[in-house]
């Protein structure tokens, strides 16, 4: 594999904004929600429209609103026309991919300041129609007519992870308890909750072994990240955050096509660690591993657990958070269940994962989600959580280097980006 042949110019994040995610916000359409997040980010860095060279629009499904070219409608509403812009789409990873596209706009030297805005309006259809639209992001010849339900696909992956590695439903539930609990201190989150493992197991079964509280919800929301070149970043802000590297991986659309091969090893792993593991099968995400490997090589990370201070990852399901600990090399494949048991990913653990509450509790307005992660990570690394949340409970004290992870489909597109505090 080849990594970042030419690194380009250094890229920094200089500001961000997020709307409060909610089940439905019918008093605002997507344009107004993006405008609110955009104005928040401009104000926070004393920027004006004139400072923005261009943008990237991030949204997933045209079906949700039956409105094509929503991207240009947001661009137009923000007053960014006639500046350059494009839409980026890749299922659940849309936000992560758009953030990386913004990075590329700046790294290439094309733009000095790029606004990446993401949004989704999922409340215009009922939950089960929404699930149908999302399921159309599975092969419509072979998968949609049989399963037609993403929670069903993830349930089978969880079932296989439990079979391969002995992961338990209680371990899955602990992810839900942790993330909903963290969100109690995040005013932007949709579903803060103080719950127990029993609450998770007793909530209605959606697809065995995943219950209602193992699965994220549908949301309306928007998020904005502003990226800049080094020169501009330090002109704009005393506290820019460096985007040290990006990594992206892909895998087959159909779960059924995943091969049974060898693990692509990280710097801290050996072939003998996985002698009998057939990889990725349907228990692991090869795209996640591939993305992590590229991002780690770009940032010079050889021991992720020791060198990363916090993580915001794509926990659309509790099971996928556990699977992702392993893909990211925070622990070895098979140790994800123990990782949550040992509290390593808790708010005051070795490497806090989803201190914001993640998708499970913050919400998942698809196109906004990956950008929301960047904004929360930016505030963590700026040590400005208290300012933005009016609560400092979630501020990770030693936050110097963070990882954000965005994930699509059954693990079809995955992005990993590494962000670093500069002071």
């Amino acid at each position: 594999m080849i990594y970042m042949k030419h690194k380009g110019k250094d890229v920094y994040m200089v500001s961000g904004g997020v709307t409060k995610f909610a089940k439905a916000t019918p008093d605002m359409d997507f344009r107004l929600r993006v405008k609110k997040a955009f104005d928040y980010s401009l104000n926070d860095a004393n920027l004006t429209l004139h400072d923005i060279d261009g943008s990237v629009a991030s949204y997933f499904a045209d079906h949700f609103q039956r409105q094509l070219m929503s991207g240009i409608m947001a661009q137009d509403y923000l007053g960014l026309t006639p500046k350059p812009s494009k839409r980026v789409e890749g299922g659940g990873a849309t936000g992560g991919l758009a953030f990386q596209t913004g990075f590329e706009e700046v790294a290439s030297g094309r733009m000095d300041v790029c606004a990446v805005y993401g949004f989704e309006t999922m409340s215009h259809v009922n939950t089960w129609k929404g699930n149908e639209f999302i399921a159309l992001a599975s092969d419509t010849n072979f998968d949609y007519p049989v399963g037609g339900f993403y929670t069903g696909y993830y349930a089978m992956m969880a079932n296989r992870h439990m079979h391969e590695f002995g992961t338990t439903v209680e371990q899955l539930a602990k992810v839900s308890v942790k993330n909903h609990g963290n969100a109690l201190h995040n005013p932007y989150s949709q579903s803060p909750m103080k719950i127990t493992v029993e609450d998770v197991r007793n909530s209605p079964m959606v697809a065995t072994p995943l219950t209602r509280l193992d699965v994220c919800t549908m949301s309306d929301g928007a998020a904005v990240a502003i990226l800049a070149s080094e020169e501009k970043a330090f002109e704009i802000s005393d506290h820019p955050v460096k985007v040290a590297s990006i990594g992206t991986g892909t895998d087959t659309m159909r779960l059924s096509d995943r091969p049974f091969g060898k693990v692509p090893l990280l710097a801290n792993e050996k072939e003998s660690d996985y002698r009998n593991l057939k990889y990725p099968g349907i228990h692991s995400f090869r795209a996640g591993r591939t993305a992590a490997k590229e991002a780690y090589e770009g940032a010079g990370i050889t021991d992720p657990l020791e060198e990363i201070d916090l993580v915001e990852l794509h926990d659309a399901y509790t099971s996928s958070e556990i699977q992702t600990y392993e893909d990211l090399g925070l622990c070895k494949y098979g140790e994800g269940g123990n990782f949550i048991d040992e509290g390593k990913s808790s708010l005051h653990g070795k490497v806090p994962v989803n201190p914001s509450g993640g998708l499970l509790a913050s919400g998942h307005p698809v196109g906004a989600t990956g950008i929301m992660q960047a904004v929360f990570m930016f505030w963590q690394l700026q040590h400005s959580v208290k300012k933005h949340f009016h609560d400092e409970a979630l501020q990770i004290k030693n936050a110097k280097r963070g990882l954000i992870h965005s994930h699509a489909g059954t693990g079809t597109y995955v992005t990993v980006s590494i962000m670093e505090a500069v002071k």
Partner: protein
Amino acid sequence: MTLNPNAKMEETQKGTEVYNVDPLIVKSHYEIDYIHSYAQDSEFFRALGKKKIMGSKCKNKDCGYVYATPRGHCMMCGSETEWHELPNHGKIHAFTTCYFGSEEFLPETPFHLVMVEFEGVNSLFMARLIGADEEDLHIGMPIRAKFRRNLRFSPTDVYFVPDVPK
């Protein structure tokens, strides 16, 4: 030539369903029939009528990857594949029972979904399974394909049941 300042749009009783007035929320209806071609996958759907599950096999002799879910070209080497009949017996690789689903399939819930593995085949096949309770399902369980008599030309024309004596 017509220049009529008294022209008037016809009034009809076609109103709009309103859910809320502030903000104004109305019902907007949309439906569509697609003319969906199975294209290079067509043979799979036709073969189900002959009680055959057709996977595919890479034509490249050095590769020969066998797919349970057919694809026209091989993901391992890029070569063309040929049709390859699968056995009617397999095993459960993974399973779930869906108690909810997308709107289209909600009336069918609860249903069992399985990933099927076949002897000598490199990839898996997603299917519905009937004839067993949730607690009877386990990984490695032998299962057998059955076929609808009245085809829908859908991948659910083949489904699986426990492979036990009748």
